[in-house]
């Protein structure tokens, strides 16, 4: 139970490799890209509730932690206000501005 191996398991299991090895979901939105680390999300609901344009909604599926992550439902509506990025407590969602021509 408290063997050294147990300790290592606990440490590595606790650390999240998601930002490096696993991929992020990425949607093309009106002014660039919206990235989501789905398995990092803890389903608080802030991003899709407070998005002023209705870009996001709660997805029906569950992520690896058992939460409903958000998903983009109206990509054209995004005005790159970045509020979802600002209000996410988990560093799970962010935006990247990109011109249309560099798609």
């Amino acid at each position, binding site marked *: 139970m408290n063997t*050294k191996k*147990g300790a290592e398991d*606990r440490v590595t299991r606790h650390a999240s490799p998601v930002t490096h090895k696993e991929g992020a979901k990425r949607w093309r939105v009106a002014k660039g890209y919206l990235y989501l680390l789905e398995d990092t999300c803890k389903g608080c609901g802030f991003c899709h509730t407070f998005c002023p344009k209705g870009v996001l909604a709660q997805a029906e599926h569950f992520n690896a932690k058992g939460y409903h992550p958000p998903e983009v439902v109206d990509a054209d509506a995004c005005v790159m206000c970045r509020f979802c990025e600002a209000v996410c407590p988990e560093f799970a969602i962010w935006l990247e501005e990109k011109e249309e021509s560099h798609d």
Partner: protein
Amino acid sequence: MNGDEAIAEGAIAAGCTFFAAYPITPQSELAERMARRLPQVGGVFIQMEDELGAMAAVVGAAWGGAKAMTATSGPGFSLMVENIGLAVMTETPCVVANVQRGAPSTGLPTLVGQGDMMQARWGSHGHYEIIALSPWSPQEAFDLTVKAFALSERFRTPVLLMTDEVVGHMYERVEIPEEVPVAPRKKPKVAPEEFLPFEPDEDLVPPMACAGEGYRIHVTGLTHDEHGYPVMDAEAHDRLVRRLCEKILRFRDEFTWWEEVMTEDAEVLVISYGISARVALGGVELARKKGIKAGLLRLITIWPFPDEVLRKLSEQVRGTVVVEINLGQIYREVERATGGRVPMRGVFHAGGRIHTPEEVLAGIEEVLKCRS
């Protein structure tokens, strides 16, 4: 100058640039001198709102790269033990002087005591080791303060200067050397990417990267691993606590200091420290005049307790007498270290005055009456 002032000068000579304290009798002269001297040497003095804050500020300043110190007496020491524990756990070099007075509680603010000796050893919660030194004169107060800073850097630990109101307030000549070595802090030898802040070297002490040096380390009072990150693990905890103890215990010969007077042929060993040792010496001299072969063992390093010294000396004598201004604290350590092999007597007083040589003599004569 008096002992308090000598400690302040010792600190300045040793390179102390940060002093945070809260006023308390009989430490006041120490803090006041630091308030006057530190700005002169480019250091910072701050009088904090309480001893809790003072000790916390000292630990913070040490992480800012400074040699940091505080001073107090019993009631303040009781508040400081919390963050002495933080300093122990985070391996922060710093010096804490306790100018002991009559206790417990508010006790006798202006009069001598030596009742905090066990608290110095075990004051903070948890199991740990600490280094504590006890001067018996203003000169020694100066010298030991310089040594305290060096030891705090060498072992990355708080070092306690356990003095008392009499030494603090007595005026004697203090010689300040022209050059006093300023002990260096052990710095990392590798780049930040490779540096493990709590990975010890062979001497069981890790190098210390302070704030703003580009190492961006995490320091916590929680049990932590070599990265400095908290770990909730019994094995890691045991490993860490043992290393923290071992780093001091294994190398204790570097700083276990004591003085022997007339012990070569002694039949009774009088053991004392601090101001009591001066009186004890008087008692030993009285005994010698009466033909009793008494000798004095004056402890300078109190913690870790010099078991070996006691064991060896106790084997040559018929009895030991411990003289201290409390009702038996170092007495118990002597008893433990000597295994109760020789009869012991304590010459105790709860505080408020120092002993008289006659009281010490009485103790010597009494212990001789015991059958081994």
